């Protein structure tokens, strides 16, 4: 453990830690572009120049480690290094670097998507010179280069910090990007005919401290200062990456990763970000409806639930007559609500959570393609194995309840027809989902639910990390989370029911006793690790 003095403040530096890291930890600001905690250190941008006592020149704080001096050599008898960040020399150097970086930087800010979250813009105010002495014409470089399916590159804005290059080399290990050309002509490029199309490519746009790499789907959609940020969780696999959901005027515009060391680190996959694109164009305006010939005919909400309750109480389905398909897309509260509903309607907890699996990789993407399967296991709901389980579940049943799953739409083409007829032959089919799915078109009753980003809920990832999602946008009219739909059901049947996320979270706590002291409003942003599930014997 070495001790350094930074502008009069003593900081203990750990073995192998650099001056920049130590200063950041202690809240001393040193400007930097190229340093990133998850990437290797290159000292490329020279922005973090600091004065080190005894060194002949200014040193880059990001590459300077602190050697532990023998006792007699220590400065002032205590310190291993004396650093000055705020001295005139360091400030002058930082101002000079800013001027160099801005010499060829176009005055694009009004059309640049990075404006508002641009490090160059921020540092220009904090460290830059008021005016440039560069009076010549700025260098011109390729603009609007399509680097990959989701990334557009603007070489004029690029400051060559190589964060994106290092990301592709070190994190995804695909090495698509490289610095090409020399000197002032240096740009970031792919190899001949190559394309930046790895499954994490958009992370390069997040890493880019300036507006050189931009996310194509979000490009020019909205200026960032209009966006409202919400902390949520990505529902695309059982990793449950922590995300920040940026919305504006009731529309989710972009999803970016949120740093969470115990779940996803700094990154997330492109597939998760593209939820916004898949959400667009989905039919989400349906009200509670009866389905006739595949077309919904909306009904008054109150009458609708009364009719459903009457149906179930009249027909007196026994647990053996009913098949219930649940989904790992349901939050813990919704699952707890379902258990309550099932006991009321059928006298026992029946139903299977569908296991949907797909491809995985060693970075973040998990093979289980539903966010809350671990939560289902924690609540004791059976998770049934294969995709073909659907038809065996339906076989010989009189009623079918499908919540947040689309077995028809997701079945392979050859199986679709068979499933279609199987579902069509069931006496009563109720489908609840956040949009009008192919399965819903075969149903008799369609109950619209709020989507993942339209409701509050908790979810448990494959490692047992419980995280909370927030209501990022308001759901369309007449749509509620399933736990509130359950409450409607129970009320229509004349029973008491909890209402709202907070009360249903109390229900969840009964099932998962470790949560005992946690309040719904106090779940930390990084989540709560739940202990390992004990396998039941026999």
């Amino acid at each position, binding site marked *: 453990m070495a001790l350094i003095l930074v502008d009069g403040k003593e900081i203990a530096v750990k073995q192998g830690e650099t001056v920049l890291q130590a200063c950041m930890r202690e809240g001393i600001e040193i400007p930097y572009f190229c340093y990133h905690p998850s990437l290797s250190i290159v000292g490329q941008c020279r922005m973090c120049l600091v004065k080190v006592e005894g060194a002949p020149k200014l040193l880059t704080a990001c590459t300077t480690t602190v050697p532990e001096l023998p006792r007699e050599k220590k400065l002032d008898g205590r310190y291993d290094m004396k650093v000055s960040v705020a001295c005139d020399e360091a400030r002058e150097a930082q101002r000079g670097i800013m001027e160099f970086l801005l010499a060829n930087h176009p005055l694009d*800010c*009004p*059309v640049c998507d990075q404006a508002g979250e641009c490090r160059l813009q921020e540092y220009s105010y904090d460290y830059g010179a008021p005016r440039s002495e560069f009076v010549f014409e700025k260098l011109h470089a390729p*603009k*609007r280069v399509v680097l990959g399916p989701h990334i557009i590159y603007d070489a004029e804005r690029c400051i060559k910090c190589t964060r994106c290059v290092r990301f592709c080399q070190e994190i995804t290990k695909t090495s698509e990007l490289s610095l090409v050309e020399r000197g002032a002509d240096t740009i970031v490029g792919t190899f001949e005919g190559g394309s930046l199309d790895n499954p994490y490519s958009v992370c390069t746009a997040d890493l880019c401290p300036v507006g050189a790499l931009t996310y194509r789907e979000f*490009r*020019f*959609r*909205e*200026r960032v*200062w*209009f966006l409202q940020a919400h902390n949520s969780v990505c529902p695309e696999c059982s990793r449950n990456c922590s995300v920040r959901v940026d919305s504006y005027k009731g529309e989710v515009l972009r999803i970016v990763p949120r740093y969470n060391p115990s779940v996803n680190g700094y990154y997330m996959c492109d597939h998760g970000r593209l939820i916004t694109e898949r959400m667009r164009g989905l039919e989400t305006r349906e009200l509670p409806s009866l389905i006739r010939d595949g077309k919904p005919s909306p009904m008054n909400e109150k009458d609708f639930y009364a009719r459903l309750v009457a149906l179930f109480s009249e027909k007196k389905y026994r647990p053996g007559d009913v098949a219930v398909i649940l989904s790992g897309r349901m939050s813990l509260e919704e699952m707890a609500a379902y258990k309550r509903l099932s006991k009321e309607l059928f006298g026992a907890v029946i139903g299977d959570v569908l296991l949907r699996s797909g491809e995985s990789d060693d970075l973040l993407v998990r093979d289980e393609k539903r966010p809350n399967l671990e939560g289902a296991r924690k609540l004791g709901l059976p998770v049934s194995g294969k995709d073909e389980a659907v038809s065996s579940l339906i076989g010989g049943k009189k009623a079918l309840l499908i919540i947040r799953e689309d077995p028809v739409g997701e079945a392979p083409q050859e199986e679709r027809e068979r499933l279609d007829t199987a579902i069509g032959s069931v006496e009563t089919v109720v489908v609840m989902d956040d949009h009008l799915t192919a399965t819903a078109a075969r149903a008799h009753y369609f109950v619209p639910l709020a989507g993942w980003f339209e409701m509050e809920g908790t979810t448990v990832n494959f490692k047992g990390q419980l995280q909370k999602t927030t209501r990022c946008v308001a759901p369309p009219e007449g749509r509620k989370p399933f736990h509130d739909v359950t409450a409607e059901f129970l009320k229509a049947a004349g029973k008491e029911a909890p209402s709202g996320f907070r009360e249903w979270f109390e229900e969840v706590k009964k099932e998962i006793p470790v949560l005992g002291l946690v309040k719904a409003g106090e779940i930390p942003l990084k989540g709560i690790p739940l202990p390992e599930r004990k396998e039941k014997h026999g």
Partner: protein
Amino acid sequence: MICRRPVLTIWEKLYLPSIAQGLMVTVRHLFRKRVTVQYPEERWIPPSYFRGAPILLTGLDGQEKCTSCKLCQFICPPKAITIKGAETEDHKEKYPEEFFIDMGLCIFCGYCQEVCPVEAIWLKHQYELADYDRTALIFDKKKLLEMGRMAPYLKGREKPVQGGGE
């Protein structure tokens, strides 16, 4: 306080001289320069610094100058401006696909003109904005550009094209 009536002289009590005096004022004004305008037959043309309805300007290439940076939307105190940006093949990369100004909300403060980095939006001569329908007060891009083309004194002319009623 007690207000006492002034005691009038005989000359004042005659009354007619005062009427003649009053009429003299009217007659004097008959020969002075007029300050009112016979609206709507005559229309006042405001000076160049007048802040009327915002308009959008067209560049030399025939395209709108606006790059959809949305600074005016951000700065607008009554939030009267709504812009939807989109990508274009042009040099400027970004253009406003939709541009709405709700004239029912606009307070003619001129912040949008001041903040615009490409000088695309100006508050100009147009002051007759009344309508029977509120939805008609929401001006779209086409209308705003049309108003921009009709605006007088755009080429640095400080004086209006026609003389005013002054």
